[in-house]
């Protein structure tokens, strides 16, 4: 068995690589000549919920997008369930940031969720009653079934986010990657989303979330991954989410009051 020695000196066996739903090695992404993500390794634990946190511009979303091939990377290797990504696309569901699309686009809520069945229905296949029914099921799970026929622009921000989540659910994937799903949403939406994510975990699925609210990390997640262009720390919330790692990731950008708050949360 071949051991890989990573940047920070830890080792991963090929075996642990094969078991991880998402294993990233040496990923570097640059905008122009400036690295946004530099030589990052990440090993997501199966069946658990992981938060990716870090200051603004630390490369959280960029890392996720590059891992999915949405944006090009300069170097790095990504394995999904131990295999190259292209063969595993059907097992991966991605929830992009809400702001990444035009909500005045002429489409209804149900149509957006049906996009999640794209791979299943195929390029030419007819959308049948069964597809509609399963799309409605997904909307029910996020509490949006009553909105199925609305134009998406008529929804509030939180509702739009839940529709995006419903689209990911429709894929019936094994690995869910969400980019800032809690950003700018109302309390009802946050509750609805976290309930769904926890139910996914209960079904044995793996959830990775780019997260910005440090106050809820310990409550929502099992693992935490801290990044500031380079990887800062990775591990279970109990051992890894503390003022030392946070200071390392956020540096001076963490206000004194925030640090105090965090000390209370993390004990």
């Amino acid at each position: 068995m071949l051991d890989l020695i990573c940047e920070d000196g830890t080792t991963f066996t090929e075996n642990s690589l094969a078991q991880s739903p998402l294993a990233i090695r040496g990923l570097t992404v640059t905008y122009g000549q400036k690295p946004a993500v530099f030589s990052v390794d990440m090993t997501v634990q199966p069946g658990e919920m992981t938060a990716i946190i870090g200051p603004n511009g630390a490369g959280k979303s960029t890392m996720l997008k590059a891992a999915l091939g949405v944006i090009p990377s300069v170097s790095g290797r990504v394995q999904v369930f131990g295999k190259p990504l292209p063969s595993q696309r059907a097992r991966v569901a991605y929830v992009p940031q809400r702001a990444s699309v035009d909500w005045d686009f002429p489409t209804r809520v149900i149509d957006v969720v049906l996009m999640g069945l794209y791979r299943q229905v195929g390029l030419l296949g007819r959308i049948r009653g069964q597809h509609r029914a399963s799309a409605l099921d997904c909307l029910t799970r996020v509490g949006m079934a009553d909105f199925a026929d609305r134009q998406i622009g008529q929804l509030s921000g939180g509702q739009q986010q839940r529709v995006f989540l419903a689209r990911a659910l429709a894929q019936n994937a094994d690995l869910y990657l969400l980019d800032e799903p809690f950003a700018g949403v109302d309390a009802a939406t946050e509750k609805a989303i976290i309930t769904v994510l926890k139910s996914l975990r209960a079904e044995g699925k793996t959830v990775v979330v780019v997260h910005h609210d440090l106050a809820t990390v310990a409550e929502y997640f099992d693992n935490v991954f801290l990044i500031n262009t380079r990887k800062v720390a990775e591990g279970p919330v109990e051992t890894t989410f503390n003022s030392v790692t946070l200071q390392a990731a956020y540096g001076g950008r963490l206000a004194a009051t925030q640090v105090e708050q965090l000390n209370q949360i993390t004990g």
Partner: protein
Amino acid sequence: MIWDALLLQLGYNATLVSVGAALLGAAAGITGTFLFLRKRALVADAVSHATLPGVCIAFLVMASLGGDGRNLIGLLVGSALSAWVGLWCLNWLTLRTRLAEDAAIGAILSTFFGFGVVLLTVIQTAGIGRQAGLEGFLLGSTAGMLFNDALLIAGGGAATLVIIALTRRALTLVSFDPEYASAQGINVPQVDMLMMGLVMAVTVIGLKIVGLILIVALLIIPAVTARFWSERSDIVVLLAGLFGAAAAYVGAGVSASAPNLPTGPLIVLMSAGLFALSLFFAPSRGVLAAVIRQRRFQRRVHLRQGLLALAQGQPIYENLTLRLLGRAGLVRRDGVATETGRARAAKALRDEKRWEILRRDHAQEPAAELYDGLRAIETVLTPDEIREIDAKIGAPQEIPT
């Protein structure tokens, strides 16, 4: 004359032009909708202007080889090649330099068009071959249209439509959410390239009828027109095809009904007419509908505020409010509430409290979402649910007289 033209009674050539134009209009409208949804409408303008050098070079090559320089297929192949070069330059500028797409479009459009005009002038002044009619590619010319030309347009249009029918789902997904499409394993640059290829095809087959300067109108106007009428992309696409075909058919008919009426510009004007009609009169998204909606809303707000003021015994200062209340028989001329007025006021105040409770309840979110301060609570709750809320509020409040 116009009716004769629309009923295809104006002879062989006019019929050929009308049918060909309608097919082109449908293909352009449908292709253009995806371009519009992808927010790259202006790329079509760069592509169409980039065809001119190709047309001229193709003419020169064919004439110098001793053939007929005006062979339509040859000219269209030339135009497609140079449009491709223009598109490639545009992509390169956008992806590899820091130039924004709009600036790149401006640069490509003017450079290629300028080069084309130089070539055209050289051809005309040098008197190479039988060049008469070459300038028709600028604004379209249907005068000498042959059956084969019409066949070419029909075939090209049909092929475009078939390709779109086969790829519509990918085109829509990439237009709406390219990041998600990419994560789903769709090759977004390839789909974009396909979209541009289709635009190029429509442009090239439309050169003969509409000309390169106006073809962008056929791609874009039907799409924005159709957008007024539907909130569903599949319906917008079909409507755009319909509007495009109708405008082209009528425009070609009108131009055939009298001598010296240009076909392309008339088609564009017809299309613009449909656009103007939709802009003002479309339900829900139209300007008129918006004005009416706004006025109705304002009246409802005034009425509601008036009722709440009555219920709380506050004076009403606004004339519009008093007028509306009076007209509805809710207050007398002297501003005192009538019997019905007091009943309605009491109901308004009670509904206000019911909404307050409802909006605190997370389980009722879809209903609470509909709150606008005006809607009657009976439209969102069952009588049982209202009774449940009433139990929390207590007895109705007395209205001061």
